[in-house]
């Protein structure tokens, strides 16, 4: 088990290899479908002008993401009435939906870790090598357990995206995950995909 504290340096990220279990501590940002689209459309390959609090939110999240981590997660949050937010359930969502955006988001913010489930594709794997960064696989569905590693909800941006799609800034301690894509081109997902494809061919011919 390796302990990782955010922010993390390029050198420390390169130490991590596919298969390493890690415990993550520090400040991370949740972001999923709506957030990735918003980042690309408004700031990375702009097709719309920043509106409302867009610029303010961008300026606030930039330092959190720089050498930091984004978590594909749409949590269950208590305290929505009074703003005394607590994460009740906070497992990862399927990451592959962000494949069209992720590599550009990683390069733009110098992300060191993308946390999610199900793995990502070749574009993201290339960005992992280049930036450098890793993909950390959290256990899908283990939402109550993971919520316990969320020590504090610091604040939330873009709550108008809806609770699952908003950007929650959280402080985690001992957040459990496994490295499944590393900064050296290694991907457990590519491996399993290839082996299972071969096995499927056999079974289809049987």
């Amino acid at each position, binding site marked *: 088990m390796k302990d990782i504290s955010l922010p993390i340096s390029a050198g420390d990220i390169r130490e991590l290899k596919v298969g390493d279990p890690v415990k993550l501590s520090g400040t991370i940002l949740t972001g999923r479908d709506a957030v990735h689209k918003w980042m690309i459309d408004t700031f990375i390959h702009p097709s719309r002008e920043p509106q409302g609090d867009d610029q303010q939110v961008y300026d606030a999240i930039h330092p959190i993401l720089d050498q930091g981590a984004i978590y594909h997660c749409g949590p269950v949050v208590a305290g929505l009435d009074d703003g005394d937010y607590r994460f009740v359930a906070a*497992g990862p969502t399927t990451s592959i939906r962000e494949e069209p955006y992720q590599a550009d988001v990683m390069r733009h913010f110098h992300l060191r870790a993308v946390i999610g*489930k199900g793995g990502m594709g070749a574009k993201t794997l290339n960005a992992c090598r280049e930036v450098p960064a890793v993909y950390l696989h959290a256990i899908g569905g283990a939402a109550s357990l993971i919520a316990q590693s969320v020590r504090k909800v610091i604040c939330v941006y873009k709550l108008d995206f809806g609770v699952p799609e908003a950007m929650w800034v959280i402080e985690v301690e001992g957040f459990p995950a496994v490295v499944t894509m590393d900064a050296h081109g290694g991907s457990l997902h590519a491996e399993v995909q290839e082996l299972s494809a071969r096995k499927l061919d056999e079974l289809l011919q049987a």
Partner: protein
Amino acid sequence: MQDLRKAFLELIRRTSTDLPPDVQNSLEAAREVEATGSAAQGALITILENVDLARENATPICQDTGTPIFTVHHPAGWSTRELRAQIEEAIALATSKSYLRPNAVDAISGVNSGNNLGDSAFPTIHFEEVEGETLTVDLILKGGGCENVGAQYSLPDSRLGAGRDLEGVRKVVLDAVQKAQGKGCAPGVLGIAIGGDRGSSYAASKEVLLRPMTDENPDPELAALEHTLYTQANQLGIGPMGFGGQTTVLGVKVKGMHRLPASYFVSISYMCWAHRRRRMTLTGGKVTYS
């Protein structure tokens, strides 16, 4: 009509936070099968710790509390309009109590309703009148990750060499499991419907997920297909979370339907390991849960 709002709320709480024992047993058996110290076994250990914790704290097993799918079997004389209203009230209350995540998003505007209520399909409620005096309500919470890897095939499928027979069904189901990899939160449970039209077929593929994990299909031919698919899907080596391993699926449930001469659909609903399904029964004014 009886006020069942509290009972529905309790049904939702149990479904979201308390994994059924038969599913837990399957996960525990899988944990013993995976190699000691492997990532696959590690995933199952974490999953089972989470199941216990969610039950203890009455917090959602998974943050994606999914589409609530209710199946209501009611005696003659019950108002389905009134039942729907009571279920919807319970859903909104369960959301405010954090048993459910607000999940209903208007597809056109992108706005989340905030209380899990949307159009007539959110929550989904099927009503059916039955003989006798007992009301039963089944609830499944089906998350988006596993719903997204569901698939429907129209046979014959020349790419897979799948004809219009059970051998063809075998081929397309294995293809769907291989395509899903770990993305539907493996190890999953497969609900499969053969026949119907596109709509009825998908609906039936979810309905079969209500069957207990260990039951035997009464049709020997389908029972054999279920066994074959279970064995071969697990030979794919995808494993828990797609980490590689022995356990890719926990169970397979198949149903045959009538179809048009021209159509031969195979619909596969993939249910994640967090197979949240509970039943509420009302007999003689008394509510029980299973």
